[in-house]
């Protein structure tokens, strides 16, 4: 276990370093001119030159990279043009709102996806299975931003049963002191009950939007795991010993689904981070996605860089946690070849050896 942990942590560090390099490359090496974009198309040559000077774009690439990494190590992501605050501070105060949304969406997706997936897997080829399969394909075919708009049209504009898509709470709601920068937690801590109710009601539609789209991969994984387990030798043995369906469901199917879901979580969460920019834009949700969208429309490079770096770091950290949890749950990884068993399930871990991977990744995306 310790060897596995050390290697896995080393991998995470290497990946983080790689992420920094890639973010730097994308923003500094690609043949675009950030100064030109920031100054607008009509800037004269003098303004452009001054701006290039100010942004340090005339320095050699290596010097730029060194100062970039140096700033990063001091916890600085630069200053945002549009808000005037340090980007790191901006992102930290907005991250809790995005996490709120992600947690609520994952909860909805799990509550819908897992029971449907199990039902589909147990009734293979019958009606629940067809509903599940078609539902999964349909869920993967609906653009997130469009689904968000349709939900607003139905629940707000037509049926008037949800609050307006105007951020986390009503503009008139009392604002609790910001301990955690999560409105729900803050109002819970300070006992601002009406704000809490308001915040929860504003959370429903965006969480539903993200959750419904997220249901598709969860349903798919649950269904295939259930199919696999239901036709396994140990379930046949369990049936031979006359264990009840309920016992088999609890001991075999749910346990396997849970471990497999753990590995899907990394993919799903990355999807949430990528999708949050669309959903937050639609619902005016004040998380890092909306911040990034504002940065994009005002071509605020420091903010965009900070955002994508944050997403990369969150993703790597989450994968690290999932891998460690997986090792805790599954002794095959903890004790055996470690990486080899993991490789069969998910993305390969770094090692000098080459192991043949089956092309099972068709259709999964991050």
């Amino acid at each position: 276990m310790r060897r596995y942990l050390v290697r896995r942590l080393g991998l995470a560090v290497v990946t983080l370093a790689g992420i920094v390099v890639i973010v730097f490359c994308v923003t500094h090496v690609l043949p675009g001119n950030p100064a030109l974009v920031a100054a607008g198309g009509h800037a004269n040559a003098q303004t452009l030159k001054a701006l290039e000077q100010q942004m340090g774009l005339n320095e050699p690439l290596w010097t730029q990279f060194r100062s970039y990494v140096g700033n990063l190590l001091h916890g600085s992501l630069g200053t945002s043009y549009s808000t005037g605050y340090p980007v790191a501070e901006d992102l930290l105060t907005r991250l809790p709102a995005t996490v709120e949304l992600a947690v609520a969406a994952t909860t909805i997706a799990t509550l819908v996806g897992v029971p449907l997936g199990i039902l589909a897997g147990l009734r293979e080829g019958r009606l629940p299975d067809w509903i599940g399969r078609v539902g999964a394909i349909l869920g993967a075919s609906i653009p997130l931003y469009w689904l968000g708009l349709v939900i607003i049209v139905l629940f707000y504009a037509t049926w008037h049963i949800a609050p307006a898509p105007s951020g986390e709470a009503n503009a008139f709601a009392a604002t609790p002191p910001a301990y955690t920068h999560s409105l729900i937690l803050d109002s819970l801590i300070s006992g601002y009950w009406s704000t809490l109710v308001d915040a929860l009601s504003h959370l429903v539609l965006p969480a539903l939007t993200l959750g419904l789209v997220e249901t598709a991969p969860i349903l798919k994984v649950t269904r295939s795991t259930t199919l696999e387990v239901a036709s396994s030798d140990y379930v046949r043995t369990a049936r031979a010993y006359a264990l009840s369906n309920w016992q088999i469901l609890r001991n075999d199917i749910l346990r396997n689904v849970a471990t497999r879901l753990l590995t899907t979580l990394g993919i799903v969460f990355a999807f949430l981070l990528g999708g949050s920019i669309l959903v937050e834009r639609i619902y005016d949700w004040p998380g890092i996605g909306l911040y990034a969208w504002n940065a994009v429309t005002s071509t605020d490079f420091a903010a965009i860089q900070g955002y994508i770096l944050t997403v990369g770091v969150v993703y790597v950290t989450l994968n690290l946690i999932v891998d460690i949890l997986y090792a805790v749950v599954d002794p095959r990884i903890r004790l055996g070849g470690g990486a080899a068993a993991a490789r069969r399930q998910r993305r390969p871990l770094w090692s000098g050896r080459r192991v043949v991977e089956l092309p099972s990744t068709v259709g999964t995306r991050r």
Partner: protein
Amino acid sequence: MTALTGLGIDATQGGKPARPTASKAGRMAPVLHELRQHPNLAVGGTLLIVVTAIAIVGHIAPPHNPLAINPNDMTLAPSAAHWFGTDEYGRDVLSRVVYGLGIDLLIGAIVAGLALMIGSAFGLVTGYIGGWFDDIVMRVVDIVMSFPSFLLALTICVVLGNNARNVVIAVTIAYVPYMLRLTRSSVLTARSADYVLGARAVGASRGRVMALHVLPNAVGPTLVQATLMVGWAIFDVSGLSFLGVGIQPPSPELGVQVADGASYITSGQWWDSVFPGIAIVLTVLAVNFLGDYADEKLRGQRA
């Protein structure tokens, strides 16, 4: 599973002759059988044909000019004259949807095609050569894939500048790692096969073995992935345009249209955003059904 379909299963179905006769209907029998066995193929294929036909007809002869501004007909609800209503500039939404469908389909196909070519070429070489070259390439691929592809494409597109060409480049760059990884893993399987050993034994060059023996046997999953990627690309390109990155108004690209209408939906003018979205859903649905079928076939072969 594929082996079973050839074993006269037809004979048990509704008294149909198991062996097709030489007539035209007879030649179609295996196709019809496959369609009946796999509803996902039937639904996906039909949808794709319909969507493509609409896109082509809509591109050649849209009912109205998709760009013509008409101040007298602003934000009209759907009616006999304008089936999908009109937008805030009085442009006919139906015309814009059928015209924009072609744009999205074309861009989706271009992105998938480019990612397929670049990704499978690199995957073939890195998988076949192996060694430290493979180690380095795969490490880079792993790191690139730790960004959600949509956000990677977004950042690249913002840096390169907003236009149709750059959005294609950005999304392709974001997809190449997926293709590379997939091709490489099939190549690793194919590389150690007996026929490759045989080809090498009779003195075939490295390039010849790669191109004629490894690639054809490794390309299956990659092609399936490329099909699915048309759907991803339509999603991501229209999503970027929705955010104002990539293709710009007044283009009738579908994501641009959804964004145009988005500011009006809270006041009840839903048609402007909803119809372009339905076009996206139907197109991606077609691709995903076909991908589901291909995946089923692939798994059947492997099992």
